[in-house]
């Protein structure tokens, strides 16, 4: 937690003193994002193929709609419905808690881009 706050401080300082420090903080911010921007599965019980496909779809959607979580979620949900059957639900965000009921072997919960969390599940 301390490292996180430190980085936040770094970033804030950089924004205010842009002339003095030539984007060090920004670099750190960018580094942090670059280092940890690979998609990472936090929990899933999907079979291998489905998991890979879903993960790729989520990454594509999040990259495409980087600023708009709703559109990204919409894209993911519609594609999942088409591919794997009806009634998928998608939540994308940076800070939320959830408790869901899902069909067995149809849940994916992953992190992406260092700060984004995506939860996809099926329940009709």
């Amino acid at each position, binding site marked *: 937690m301390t490292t996180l706050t430190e980085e936040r401080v770094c970033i804030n300082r950089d924004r205010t003193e842009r002339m003095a420090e030539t984007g060090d903080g920004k670099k750190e911010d960018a580094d942090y994002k670059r280092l*940890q921007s690979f998609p990472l599965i936090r929990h899933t019980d999907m079979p*291998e193929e489905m998991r890979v496909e879903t993960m790729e779809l989520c990454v594509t959607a999040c990259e495409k709609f980087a600023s708009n979580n709703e559109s990204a979620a919409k894209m993911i949900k519609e594609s999942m419905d088409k591919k794997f059957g009806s009634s998928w639900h998608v939540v994308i965000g940076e800070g939320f*808690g959830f408790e869901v*009921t899902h*069909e067995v072997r149809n849940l994916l919960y992953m992190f992406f881009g260092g700060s984004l969390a995506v939860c996809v599940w099926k329940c*009709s």
Partner: protein
Amino acid sequence: MSNLSEKTVVLRRARLNAATSSLMRFSFKECCFKPVADEPDIEIEGSLVHKDSEEGQILCAEKEVGRKSKTLFSCITTATQTTINPPREVACQTESQPLLVNYSATANQWEIYDFYQEELQKRTSSTKKDEKENEIAEGAEGVHGNLSLLRDFTDKSDHDLAMLSTAAKLLEYAVNENINGDIIADFKHFEDEADEFRGDKGTLLPLWEFQYNKVKSLPVSALCWNKKYNDLFAVGLGSHKFTELECGMLLFYTWRNNNHPEFLFNTDSGVMCVDIHEQKSHLVAVGLFNGNVCVYNLMAKGDQPIYNSMASSGKHSGTVWQVKWWEDDLYGNHTFFSVSADGRVVSWTLGKYELFSTNIIKLPPMDKVPDDLNNVIVTAGLTLDFHKQKPYHFLVGTEAGKIHKGSTHYTRFIKTYEAHFRMVSCVRWNPFNPKVFITCGMDWRVNIWDETTDSPVFTFDLKSSVMDVAWAPYSSTVFAAVTADGKVHVFDLSINRFEALCQQRVVSTKRHLTCIEFNPVHPIIIVGNDRGLVISLKLSPNLRKNPKEEKGKEPSTGAEVEIAKMEKLLILMR
């Protein structure tokens, strides 16, 4: 009623009353007018009759009568059948409700960050671990391979089954231990006290029986104990008769499970001999009926040998009767020797991918073979043994009944002994005394030799073809032999020089015993018969006695003293 078949023709006239009655026509013949006959102008057949005429009245009367009874005219029966559809069953089931499960979590910035850090750490540490693992060489000779830990979130059903096999195996051992509890108790503790009353004689107590269901027709051709794991032994199954099945098996049993072999290999030809490497006890050399030699690695998965001599140019053209591991060569490659029915002793070296063969020596031809047929009619070598202390010396027994002593340094044999009248079935050096070896043959004899003399020191006639003989590892004067009539004979020369201490029938009369081996550590022998059955027997205390003067000395000293005594006796007898 009118008759149907009757035809009535009814003529109807249409009369023009006014016109016809007064017609006159002039006839020129009589020159006057005459009346014309009444002829109708049109004649049509019809079916109407005037109501009031005679016929009409008759018909009216008939009609009234006819209404009450149905004539064939008035009624026609028509029937029709609609199509009947065969009954059909149509069933339907709705899709069952899918299983539902709850899941909950929180997505916070710090949780995400922590998780990423963990993952990065794991990745860096796993790359380091991979490098280390590649460096580990042949390594531990565990029976079960290592299961790599997989960080897999999906269901682990495959891994569960693999781990289950280990657990199942241990459970099988435990169950067998329970079933065979009395046998194990006998093995560990039972010492036949009746031996004290038997004088010098001893008995063999049958312990476990090893019989694998699928090999009931294959004779046991070779047995070999594993020096490292004392409860594991190899059984080679195969027949040397042309009429029997052309297949073989190599099984490994442990007495912890006598129902099912630990390892099982199917070979395409009968297994004739087996040897397990002394130090690397996962390497097993096998000689086959079709002349091939194979090397199996027990730690490798799969049914196939790691080396096979099928592709080698120096392979044998006759049945391989004996294989024996030897020392590693200069480069550290493992080597083994084989002797076969084509009369050659060949040494095989395990190269990286294949076996390299080297001809060591060719057996000299038999007496009656003319010189020009030397290469055609070969003397089959049946058995081979390396000297325990001088590993470059070896003995080869042939089908001509001769024993040849040879050395890997020389291309000719050093010495030849006329051992038996018929085939020599086994030759073994004494494990302690460097000069003594034992041979047995199909001429019913077991001979004990001193390598310096030309005639045997001891001879025993066992009344039946002797198939195999083995020295006991704990004493230089104890040996056991098996004969074709199903008996095991145990001798101890320090106690009784002329008779066996034990002559016990172990299998039924119809079955031959084919092999015998002593366990290197425990007082147990295993014998194999010609129906794939291996029986283990415990030696009673009388058979394991050490001679009295050996309280502090090693047995070899005792044997030399013994042999020296024998020599003196023989010289006296001559």
